[in-house]
């Protein structure tokens, strides 16, 4: 059942490629734009790298994962509106299995924009993060897509309409941008310095960034992994509760 749902979601990419292209191009456009605009920030004392593109690329990858996960929520809302999901609920499949199929498809789909972004990034001078750094970054991207998909699906079950799409997308956008997205912690100013310190997604950003700006260490990795596990568990609870309420 899980594999069937994953295959259905992935089929959409081949059947309607035009729908997937914006999700693949947008992170790359933002990455190139923000690098060009804010690239000189690396001249500030305290910036721990001279390559702003290497600093920024993990953020763009996680943003892409966030949008992919949010799109999963939008697609689910569409399926709910059109009645297709009611047929799934009538199937003799456990509810967690239905959710697993949705989020797993999002985690696999997130590799598309991430791969394209990496290709663009390496072409404009992003540092090679090493195989371990690269695999870690991609793993964290998939994990972020799972978190975003559980966020999107919980909203879809709550509102049952595609009109909730902006809430799904903006939620993920803000979660990623209110971190050390633009600059290291010590160079952030005002409210953002405080928010980034306590925003759990900051751990994910810093963990994904390691290989691109330095070396990968376990002490910088496990907080990001723990954050993703915790967020996925929490949001999955809300998504499953929403699914149960649909049939209550």
């Amino acid at each position: 059942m899980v594999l069937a749902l994953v295959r259905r979601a992935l089929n959409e990419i081949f059947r309607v490629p035009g729908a997937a292209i914006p999700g693949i191009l947008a992170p790359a456009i933002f990455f190139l734009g923000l690098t060009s605009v804010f690239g000189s920030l690396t001249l500030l004392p305290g910036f721990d790298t001279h390559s702003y593109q290497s600093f920024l690329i993990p953020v763009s990858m996680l943003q892409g994962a966030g949008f992919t996960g949010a799109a999963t929520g939008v697609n689910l809302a569409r399926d709910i509106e059109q009645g297709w999901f009611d047929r799934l609920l009538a199937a003799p499949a456990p509810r967690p299995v239905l959710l697993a199929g949705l989020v797993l498809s999002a985690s696999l789909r997130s590799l598309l924009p991430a791969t394209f972004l990496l290709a663009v990034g390496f072409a404009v001078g992003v540092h090679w993060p090493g195989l371990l750094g690269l695999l870690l970054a991609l793993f964290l991207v998939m994990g972020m897509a799972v978190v975003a998909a559980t966020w999107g699906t919980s909203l879809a079950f709550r509102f049952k309409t595609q009109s909730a799409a902006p809430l799904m997308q903006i939620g993920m956008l803000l979660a990623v941008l209110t971190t050390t997205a633009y600059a290291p912690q010590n160079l952030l100013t005002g409210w953002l310095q405080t928010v980034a310190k306590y925003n759990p997604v900051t751990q994910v950003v810093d963990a994904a960034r390691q290989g691109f700006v330095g070396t990968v260490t376990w002490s910088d990795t496990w907080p990001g992994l723990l954050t993703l596990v915790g967020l996925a568990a929490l949001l999955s609870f809300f998504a499953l509760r929403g699914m149960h309420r649909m049939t209550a």
Partner: protein
Amino acid sequence: MMERLATNARVVAALGRRSVIQTLRRPQLAAPLILFPTALLAIQTAGAGNAVNLPQFPPVDNFLSFMLAGAIVQAVMMTGNSGAIAFAIDIEMGFTDRLFAAPISRYAVVLGRLVATAVLGGIIAVYFIVLGLIFGASLNEGLLAALWITILVAAAALAFGSIGAAIALRTNSASVVQGIFPLVFVILFLSDAFFPANLMLDPAGWVAEYNPLSFVVNGIREPIIAGWSLDTQLKAIASVIGIGIFGLTLCRYALIGRVRRGV
């Protein structure tokens, strides 16, 4: 001729009022046009705020004062795109065809939509000026600057909106107009809306030096962070007029094309 002008003016006013009310009646659609640029302004100001310490950064009180113009232009361009999408939906649903069949000028129909975009642009300018003042930005040239910025932004909104309207008239498709939305950010990134052009990385920095949008942004930014400069303001006005002429010319040819195709 005066009677005809008066008739067209009434048409423009009526359609403009309809478009403005249409936008304000659906806050769930209008809110992202304000909230998204506001959120980005807050995040970018706090995230890159130490940029004011970079050598060659223009002398400003704070980064917010510098960024305000970029946020205004971003919101206005998004509003222009949104207005064009609404126009395309009117075309798809046949409302515009009924207007074109009426004994009124086709140009007045288009201008009515653009005037609404200009009004919304002015509202956005006032919103961001007030927001900036609340959070620590300062208007170097005072109330006169606020008034001038509002007028310039409204004119710029009309100019940007004319390009979107031309695309809507030519394609008759809201999804095509929606598809150009990423281009809004590409154009913004290739200007000095968010950072001084001399500190941007090339080739974007080089493009930003000559991008007409940069002249518009600098025209808005200058009274906020510095004093008036005739050269900067004339460049801003010329850019707005140039973009407007370009967009309105495209609208004209799109309308002529519709007549030829019998649409």
